């Protein structure tokens, strides 16, 4: 086990009603906390993280689509926190009036880059290691078909360490390897990555980048975890949800 604390952050691709890459990665650490939240835009994500991190922590962020802009309700708080209502929480992103009249791709993109660089700076000031991955094709997010003019140039102007945003994102990984539709009590047509997809994304994309992990000692644990992930996959395909990542793992 790794002595450092692991903090993970993201949207529903990180914290969901079944185990995600974050939960599987967390099993390698003595302490693991997932501050990801379904429906989050990238701004909401950094605000949840600011006061959670300490010197020596390892933080892994799976940034969400930069196109998102979370609507705040009249009470001044984002609407529901749980997966049950995360579409409502995030509905501004898909609001037609917003998209047609006010959504500005470059405004959204640079805002997310600002969020990322703020976390990068905080990590250097406080003294923790943060790794950046992307849930969606980084220059496209969830909406765009083509990058904006100068977007690549803007992206490259930001200096961020441990930057894996342009490497394989979870959505493309899902489409390539695990394009499944599941049905749960929350969503009858759910295209979120299933547990086995999350496990392999953690194993093949995220884990090799984490410098603090001794990769020579991981094979047995990964084999056991894969068995648990297959069990979790079967549960999800049978319509189950809300079970813990350790479900079945303790018996392996």
């Amino acid at each position, binding site marked *: 086990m790794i002595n450092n604390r692991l903090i993970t952050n993201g949207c529903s691709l990180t914290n969901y009603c079944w185990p995600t890459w974050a939960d599987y990665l967390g099993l390698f650490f003595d302490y693991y906390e997932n501050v990801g939240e379904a429906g989050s835009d990238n*701004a909401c994500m*950094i*605000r949840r993280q*600011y006061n959670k991190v300490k010197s020596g922590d390892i933080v892994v962020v799976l940034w969400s689509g930069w196109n998102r*802009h*979370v*609507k*705040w*309700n*009249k*009470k*001044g*708080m984002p609407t529901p926190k749980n997966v049950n209502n995360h579409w409502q929480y995030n509905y*501004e992103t898909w*609001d037609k*009036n*917003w998209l047609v*009249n*006010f959504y*500005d791709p*470059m*405004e959204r993109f*640079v*805002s997310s880059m*600002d*969020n990322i*660089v*703020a976390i990068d*700076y*905080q990590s*250097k*000031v406080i003294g923790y290691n943060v790794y950046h991955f992307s849930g969606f094709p980084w220059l496209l997010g969830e909406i765009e078909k083509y990058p904006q003019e*100068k977007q690549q140039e*803007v992206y490259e*102007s930001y200096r961020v360490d441990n930057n894996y945003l342009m490497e394989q994102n979870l959505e493309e990984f899902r489409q390539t390897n695990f394009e499944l539709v599941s049905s749960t009590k929350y969503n009858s047509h759910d295209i979120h990555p299933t547990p086995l997809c999350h496990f392999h994304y953690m194993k093949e994309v995220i884990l090799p980048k984490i410098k603090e992990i001794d990769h020579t000692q991981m094979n047995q644990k990964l084999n056991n975890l894969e068995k648990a992930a297959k069990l979790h996959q079967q549960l999800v395909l049978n319509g189950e949800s809300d079970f813990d990542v350790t479900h079945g793992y303790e018996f392996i």
Partner: protein
Amino acid sequence: MTTLWTGGCSYTQYCWPTWADYLGNHYNTHIQCGKSNMDCASISRKIYFSDIKPGDDVVVAWTSFDRFTFYNDKQGWKGGNCTVSNKEFFTNHYHQYERFSAMVDHLYLLEQDSKAREYNLWHFSAFPFLLGETHLDVHDKIQEKFDSIKQQFKNFFVDKNLWDFRETQGTIITKHKYNGNDNHPTPQCHWNWLEQIVAPAMNINLKNLSDKVANDQQRVLNGDVS
């Protein structure tokens, strides 16, 4: 003294001298990063992407949190056009707590940047910090957030803002080639704010620029702007 970098909106860089220009007289080099119409995101980006050296002084007069910027090819992604007056935007897509939180994100980004790059950063505010340009009452969540974050900033002097200061001095409306009804603070107001608010906070002894300020003030009152 070292190099001074100033950031802000039209209350920092305008068609007549502002507090930033007068403060710049006290440094070997003054680089003005302020620009009319900027929102807080654009202000922080302008500073963040500047080649600031360790030991430099950076002073920002943050603009109102309620601005929201759209970008265009002409002004580029570091500038942009902000909206504070689009009714449809404000009715359907705006929430002051979201905007205030976004502003705090940018203050925090620069605060971290100042520590990482070892420059000295001071925060001031052009408008009432918790009200912005459009609100009459402070939202409960904004007050709560402000109370929870203010200790995280080292040189944080956002309470005596330039907008309110101008009103205590007696607002003067000027007329010139850009604007026939301009209520921006005049040079004398900028100097007074610098002298009474900014310089004491920075522990700077100002030179006597009274003749220059008086001359600048008279030119503005005569409609003579650059």
